[in-house]
């Protein structure tokens, strides 16, 4: 059974139809990359899965539950981690406290245990030497790696990445993508909105191509990148590859 099922989802902001009948599935342990031109609704789709936005029609079933009917949103969000384009590290705390806070407040872990888990995750993303640094002193790539560690600390079952490398300079993109690749090797279920086609081709189990609120094409990356069936997909890929 798929871990995430998106069924005929529609969403509009005012008169602007952002999502116009979106459906796709995500299997446990898979990496699904959402690609497509800007404004096609990829980020909105991701934000709906985390309930940062609500949908107008359709269903989003995650871990067997219709998420727009659940009562405890906070418990649900803890299971679905999110990594943002702008990192969004808590500016008033250092790196380790960024990773400890939700563990203590949401999972009610004691501080020592939370600290050990935080250090493990920070070491995993190569930020173990920066635990006392404040976000303002870190580079973009470092911030994003801390943000990934912070999301991992509350033991999510699914991770959502909203253009995790779009705010980074080219040199830093690699360090963040490598961390995500490592997570893919550990069979973490991930949905990644990205413009990094090389990454999508190498790491994704499934690529979903979206344009103006609909899924034009989905499939294995080699199908999408080598033999796109849809004319619009072909155009888009010709321009970005």
């Amino acid at each position: 059974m798929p871990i995430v099922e998106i069924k005929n989802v529609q969403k509009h902001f005012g008169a602007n139809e952002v999502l116009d009948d979106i459906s796709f599935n995500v299997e446990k342990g898979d990496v699904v990359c959402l690609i497509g031109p800007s404004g096609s609704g990829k980020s909105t789709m991701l934000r709906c899965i985390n309930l940062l936005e609500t949908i107008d029609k359709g269903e989003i079933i995650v871990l067997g539950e219709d998420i727009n009917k659940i009562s405890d949103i906070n418990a649900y969000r803890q299971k679905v981690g999110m990594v943002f384009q702008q990192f969004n590290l808590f500016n008033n705390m250092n790196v380790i406290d960024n990773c400890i806070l939700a563990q203590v407040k949401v999972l009610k872990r004691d501080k020592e245990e939370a600290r050990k888990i935080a250090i493990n995750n920070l070491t995993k993303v190569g930020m173990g030497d920066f635990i006392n640094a404040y976000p303002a002193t870190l580079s973009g790539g470092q911030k994003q790696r801390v943000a990934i560690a912070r999301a991992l600390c509350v033991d999510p079952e699914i991770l959502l990445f909203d253009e995790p490398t779009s705010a980074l300079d080219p040199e830093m993109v690699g360090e963040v993508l490598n961390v995500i690749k490592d997570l893919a090797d550990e069979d973490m279920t991930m949905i990644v909105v990205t413009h990094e086609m090389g990454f999508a081709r190498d790491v994704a189990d499934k690529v979903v191509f979206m344009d103006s609120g609909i899924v034009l094409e989905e499939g294995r990356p080699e199908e999408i990148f080598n033999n796109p069936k849809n004319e619009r997909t072909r155009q888009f890929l010709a321009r970005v590859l």
Partner: protein
Amino acid sequence: MSLAKCLEILSKYYLSFLLGIRTTLIVALSGTLIGLCIGLLVGGVRAIKLDKTASGFNKTLKKIIDLILKVYIEVFRGTPMMVQAVFIYYLVYTNIVRWDKMVAAIFIISINTGAYMAEIVRSGIQAVDVGQNEAARSLGMSSMQTMMNVILPQAIKNAFPAIGNELIVNIKDSSVLMIISITELMFQSNSIAGTTYRFTETYFVTAMIYLCLTTFSSLILNAIEKKMNNTETSLPQSDTNFHSINIAKKGD
């Protein structure tokens, strides 16, 4: 006006001035602190944005509370504190309880400052990037936990200069509370001037004392602000944490 006379008044009546300074500082400091607490509560509640999934009942309740708070802010910002002081003092004194003047003074200055603080806190909260809220909520934290641990600390830091400004304002504006005859600095000055008939000299001394109090407060506030900014931009100091990293690695 002669400086010699000023010094004479100061040396002769310094105990009266000191008593006035003491009362002024007590009223201004406690008024600012209690006002800040009121402001955090009122401004915090006003800044809450309900989830898109919130129920209709909660949305209506929030609207009613918002309206009441808005009226409170408008009334206390829109009328002079001197009028508030006499009105509230006599209202309570004649109808409810014969309250202590000092308690009345602190109550009035607190509730007045609270109205200003509420707007200061609200703008401080709105200046915090929405991403901070989204990140905290995406980790499963409740809106209350997010407000207390992530948003408010940053909002207070944003608003600190304006909050400090309220202390300075209160040191000066507590002078209007002499209307309910608490023995603050202005009240004491009036008594001294009335005794000596040296109005110019006495009020010159008073002005100088107020200036010293506000300047000294500014210096302290600036030092605190500098310290707050330093912690978040300075590079971390290496300490014993490498020890704990090693422990964590061994535990793998």
